[in-house]
């Protein structure tokens, strides 16, 4: 049925035909992941609920026992992880803020807990202020330094990030290796990033720490995806699911492989729907919209975009989805002036190459490609190597008459079609 609609749209059917008629090699096997999709109960959620009940009742009985706030917060964080329900993240923050007020921001461990929460909420500037307090306090200083690296990198403070990296980069620990990996990735050195993450994975396996193993499997899977090693990516998502059958992130990764590599949108949607029955996150709707677009089901696409926009109206999401909101506004709703406002705010909060790319790209969509190019030359080109930003750069180069440079980029972008997905791959094709 969806196929029929697609056929009615001139100029598109040929693309779809070429996509569907030359399927990539099949990598996934529904039999091996179905068991995880069929899991009726969410065990992590149940456990987190029991933990939550335990600590809240203790806290009610003895309200002066402030360490319990840390435990209630931790239960909320686990619930957020298990269900995606954003209110848990905000609840966790309020307990951690209370805890830190009670201890007058003199306990570095409690400060770091709050910082982790702020990082999840993308409140990086507040996180930085707190980490600087914790740095003065000491008390597991190495942990504070590692988080300072994280936050500086998120804020686009590359030099500061590197200064902290230099403190621990030769440390052969899981915590150091995952950050070294992140740094290599930031520099566009994917091979080195993978190597460091593989070492971290061995560390997690060596420690036999299920949580760190699961974390490193999904992160490594993402990197393998970047590198076009789809089979390896798939296998690592499965390894994560072996440890936690409810791992929504790993399931989403498999859905992406099924959609982007195997060009099987219906199966990808089936996977997504089972994830969404247990786990909430606004970005699932964007993914569904993209799949709907690929299937030519425009009504379904619109519906999902509107759902996304209405969900993120929830204030609890804060600034977590603002960059996506800007993209949707400018690309789908032609509301570039609002999008520019958001993008400018994003640049202010987080002056990273990605934020500048968002701003430049929005100017381009508004028709000011010269301004876009100027921003990109100053803040994007050579500073990030993410294919989406590269694609934006190529479009802007083309629009400003720099055809040769745009073509150079196009050649390279063509190789990242799995990671950007079929819709964007098609855009790249037409550069």
């Amino acid at each position, binding site marked *: 049925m969806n196929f029929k609609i697609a056929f009615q749209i001139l100029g598109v059917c040929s693309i779809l035909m070429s996509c569907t008629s030359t399927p990539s090699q099949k990598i996934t096997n529904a039999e091996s992941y179905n068991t995880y999709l069929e899991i009726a109960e969410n065990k992590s959620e149940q456990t987190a609920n029991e933990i939550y009940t335990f600590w809240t009742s203790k806290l009610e009985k003895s309200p002066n026992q402030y360490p319990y706030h840390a435990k209630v917060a931790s239960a909320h964080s686990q619930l957020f992880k298990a269900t995606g329900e954003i209110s848990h993240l905000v609840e966790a923050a309020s307990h951690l803020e209370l805890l830190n007020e009670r201890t007058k921001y003199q306990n570095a461990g409690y400060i770091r807990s709050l910082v982790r929460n702020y990082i999840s909420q993308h409140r990086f500037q507040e996180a930085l202020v707190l980490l600087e307090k914790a740095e003065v306090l000491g008390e597991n200083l190495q942990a504070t330094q590692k988080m300072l690296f994280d936050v500086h990198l998120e804020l686009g403070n590359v030099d500061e990030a590197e200064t902290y990296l230099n403190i621990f980069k030769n440390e052969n620990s899981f915590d150091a290796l995952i950050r070294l990996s992140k740094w290599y990735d930031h520099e566009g050195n994917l091979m080195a990033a993978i190597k460091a993450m593989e070492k971290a994975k061995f560390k997690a396996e060596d420690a036999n720490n299920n949580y760190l193993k699961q974390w490193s499997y999904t992160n490594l899977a993402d990197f393998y995806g970047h590198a076009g090693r*789809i089979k390896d990516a798939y296998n690592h998502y499965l390894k994560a699911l072996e440890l936690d059958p409810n791992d929504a992130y790993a399931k989403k990764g498999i859905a992406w492989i099924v959609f982007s590599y195997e060009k099987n949108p219906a199966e990808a949607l089936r996977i997504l729907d089972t994830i969404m029955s247990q786990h909430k996150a606004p970005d699932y709707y964007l993914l569904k919209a993209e799949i709907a677009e690929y299937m030519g089901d425009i009504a379904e696409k619109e519906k999902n975009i509107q759902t996304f926009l209405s969900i993120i109206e929830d204030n609890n999401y804060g600034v977590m989805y603002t960059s996506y909101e800007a993209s949707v506004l400018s690309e789908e709703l032609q509301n570039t002036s609002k999008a520019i406002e958001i993008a400018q705010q994003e640049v202010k909060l987080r002056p990273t190459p990605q934020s500048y790319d968002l701003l430049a790209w929005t100017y381009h969509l508004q028709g000011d490609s010269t301004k876009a190019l100027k921003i990109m030359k100053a803040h994007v080109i050579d500073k990030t190597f993410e294919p989406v930003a590269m694609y934006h750069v190529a479009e802007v180069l083309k629009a400003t008459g720099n055809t040769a440079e745009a073509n150079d980029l196009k050649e390279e972008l063509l190789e990242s079609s799995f990671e950007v997905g079929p819709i964007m791959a098609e855009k790249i094709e037409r550069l």
Partner: protein
Amino acid sequence: MKTIKSILGIALISLFTLSSCSSDDNTIVIDNTPDFSGTFAQQDQMGRPAVNTVFVGSASKDTFNTTIPSQQSAAFQAMFETNLTGLSPAFANPGDQNALGQDAATFTGLLATDVLNVSLDGTTTFFDGTNVLTGRALADDVITVELLLIFGGEDFTENPNLSDDNVDANDKPFLSSFPYLASPW
């Protein structure tokens, strides 16, 4: 322009590996002899209860945890003494002592070396009214003992509001036999 070349290179290689990939790459290695190799570096240490919490400022905690006991007194006694006299009215004046007859310097000299003294010749207890620091038994109310030594003054009567946390026993009875600790909740 430096772009995404590294991705390109790997993508080509992966095409090759993909086609040669079979599904049996999850070899299970059965390891009968655990690996005990490697060097293990100090992260945390503990002798007496709560010493680190009470007397070591947060800026010094990392160093304290990685200073070997034989060097702790030289490195930390002065800080302990400063923190003790700052914290406890019972040690606010020169000449103040605790019930063991220790002045601030002697008391903190003992505490700064964070080891547990254990007698191999009889009763083992943190303090039972008679024996002092001959071990630490599960039921010992070590916190109240420490509070008394810190706040209780020469005869354990000073600062009564500070010298007992009024939690005197565990919430589950201990076992008389190994492994002694009560079963988990």
